[in-house]
């Protein structure tokens, strides 16, 4: 089938970008979206033009490295599917697609469709963990976890850190990303001791990274390739409030 692509080309962070049109006359419906870009890049190289830079690695929808906006939707039209797992059979002959990098102040463009998502790592470094040094753990079955909690924790832990939630959010908020980690750890008994500290530190770091605030637009949930639920944000907000309350209480108690 015939596909027309308009792709954001930008040499580096400081230069201005622009949309460039590419016509692909012969796209197979069995190709993945990224394989289509591979074919385009091979053509560009053959013509001596700079290939389109895009991040990708596992191509199995789990590493979280790939992703761009396709006609204004993060990861394209198929629900719960990363760009690398999106196949061209979901498009039709003659489709015109606009490809842009994630747009957010906290995710500066590196080149073409590649952005810098290191802000996510800094949020995790601020508190997205359980402090247990190697060797100090008790037997795995010493702490029981109700199956339901384990399942809900796993639902949240499925986040791949791709950044689609931020890219799609009108406020460029990282709330869904943070909430997924806070729910993952907060729903487990192991995560309780640091629960308040964790949420406070992560939210503070997100503010330093200039992510926006959540206004419950829900766009993040709609595009999340792993189906992370908005209700995690409610859980995060509750933890954040109670952390402040407890914090204040501790200070007042002196």
């Amino acid at each position, binding site marked *: 089938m015939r596909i027309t692509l308009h792709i954001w080309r930008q*040499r*580096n962070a400081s230069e201005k970008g622009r949309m460039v049109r590419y016509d692909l006359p012969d796209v*197979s419906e069995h*190709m993945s979206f990224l*394989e289509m870009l*591979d074919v385009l890049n*091979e053509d560009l*190289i*053959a013509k*001596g033009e*700079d*290939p389109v*830079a895009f991040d990708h*690695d*596992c*191509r*199995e*929808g*789990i*590493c*979280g*490295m790939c992703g761009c906006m396709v006609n204004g939707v993060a990861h394209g039209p198929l629900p*719960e*599917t990363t760009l690398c*797992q*999106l196949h061209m059979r979901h498009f039709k002959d003659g489709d015109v697609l606009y490809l842009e990098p994630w747009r957010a102040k906290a995710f500066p463009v*590196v080149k073409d469709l*590649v952005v*810098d998502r*290191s802000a*996510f*790592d800094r949020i*995790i*470094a*601020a508190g*997205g*963990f*359980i*402090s*247990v040094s*190697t*060797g*100090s*753990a008790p*037997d*795995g*079955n010493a702490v*029981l*976890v*109700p199956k339901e909690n*384990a399942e809900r924790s*796993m639902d949240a*832990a*499925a986040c*791949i*850190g791709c950044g689609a939630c931020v890219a799609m959010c009108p406020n460029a908020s990282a709330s869904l990303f943070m909430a997924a980690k806070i729910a993952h*750890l907060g729903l*487990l008994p*192991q*995560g309780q001791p640091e629960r308040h500290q964790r949420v406070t530190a992560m939210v503070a770091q997100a503010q330093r990274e200039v992510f926006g605030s959540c206004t419950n637009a829900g766009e993040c949930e709609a595009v999340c390739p792993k189906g992370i639920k908005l209700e995690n944000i409610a859980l995060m907000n509750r933890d954040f409030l109670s952390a402040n309350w407890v914090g204040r209480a501790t200070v007042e108690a002196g």
Partner: protein
Amino acid sequence: MELNSKSPTGPIETRWERHRFNLKLVNPANKRKYTILVVGTGLAGGSAAATLAELGYNVKCFCFQDSPRRAHSIAAQGGINAAKNYHNDGDSVYRLFYDTVKGGDFRSRESNVHRLAQISLNIIDQCVAQGVPFAREYSGYLDNRSFGGAQVSRTFYARGQTGQQLLLGAYQALERQIGAGQVQMFPRTEMLDLVVIDGKARGIVTRNLLTGKIESHLGDAVVLGTGGYGNVFYLSTNAKGSNATAIWRAHRRGALFANPCFTQIHPTCIPVSGDYQSKLTLMSESLRNDGRVWVPLQTGDNRPPNKIPEAERDYFLERKYPSFGNLVPRDVASRNAKQVCDDGRGVGETGLAVYLDFRDAIQRLGKHVIKERYGNLFDMYERITGEDPYNAPMRIFPAIHYTMGGLWVDYNLMSNLPGLYVIGEANFSDHGANRLGASALMQGLADGYFVLPNTIGDYLASNKFDRVDTSHAAVRDAESQVAGITRKLLAAKGTRSVDSYHRELGKIMWEYCGMARNAEGLKYALSKIPDLREQFWRDVKVLGTDEELNQSLEKAGRVADFLELAELTCLDALDRNESCGGHFREEYQTPEGEAARDDERYSYAAAWEFRGIGNAPVLHKEPLTFEYVHPAQRSYK
């Protein structure tokens, strides 16, 4: 060169404990005086960097991805083995040890494997404490599943995303240390050379992938946890970026490369659909727990699977291996799938696939149970193929998945170059000629959390380290070599893209050094690869500059290394005149078509020394002795 495995002797149950006691320690207050460079942030590298930092060492950590959380360990699906015997089904450390030595077709070091089985217990405890959401029973206790190559339920899992969850555990531990200032992290940074000073590994040369800047980092020891070399076959289940550059360039600097021909084919992958195919997608072999593998009994039976009656189906694994059935080890399952396809009974458009059928399991357990166990895998299959596996059987075919070979290391996980440690898939230890399912995660974490942090202290405490800086001649030399390679790649200005060479190399490797090999084919491959390499350097087309993000240039360097590693792999396969595990030489098989080992002549690890391109590498042999598990023909019947 004498290869000293430093493997302890005496009763195997206490070897690790006694060895650890004999290791020298670094005083807690002195640890901060040492700097350790860790390359790679997968299960092995990530867990090692975090643990070394917890101990108090200064750690510099490097990965080529944009974040340490992306390493390809993340894609492991099925689970991680541990001999907990929570199910009271007869499991024990000794049984896991036994299964792993046997599964590896008697080509691994007993001491290493026993240690791995012992440590498997600590890994689960550590990961649970980190908040890895392992599957639970209704009681709240940890759940287990069974896996290929074992008759007990010892595999812990987090849905079909076990690798992801374990990696996130290691990543979070690493980020905690980054936040604490104990680890300095360098993402989008690729190691391009090893710096060896006075015979010791003292540093690495890196390229910043965003700016192209070549830099050197020096320290007291270098740890490579950079994964396997499966992408030498172009199409594999590895991530697109997975590469052998770090271990290959260390090999060029003197580290021995062991058993490169031990490559593993994974039986349950989604078949190839066209020439543009960029990678193969694996589905966890845990699917074989409930799925039944079959092909039509008759050749050329093109009916849709649902129209083929029971009596006209050949459940070939259950028929040939009644006691293990669909759970035979990976190499056995893969070869049998190839065989039925070679017989003309393969299914799908290409005839290069077999069915994996869940009809009976869905009838027995209900769709909801199957969905709970494998939901994400079924979704993935449907996304890629457009077919619904709840209603029609999956089509699967084997693909290159894991490489048991890697840099040679001793019991301390140190290579023959003092101060160069190699962990996880990047080394050759533990799995012999074939790895059992759910054991890669176990080895990566065992090496990173528990083995290396213990053994590296002994090296640091027993050696004196002269102060070196980046003006040292060895550093300058390594930097200029790296810059030279980059210049050469950009200067070729040829006619063919990097990918076209990689694809061509992959075809040669899959055809002649893949699932089944023979001397004639290997000799042919050995005649083709040098030509292709020569053509690559003369005619490769890499656009752009070396002062920006240039993904073609990154790939070009990796493919250049694959073009050298491929040759060594074929040479090793040709040199090993026996079949064992993943290395199946057609000339050496039993009358039933199983791998025929030759223990008298080949019970050794083949460690190759680099002598320059165009010169024959030198083979060093580490003899393998088996005091506990006595070599026998593997039987899964």
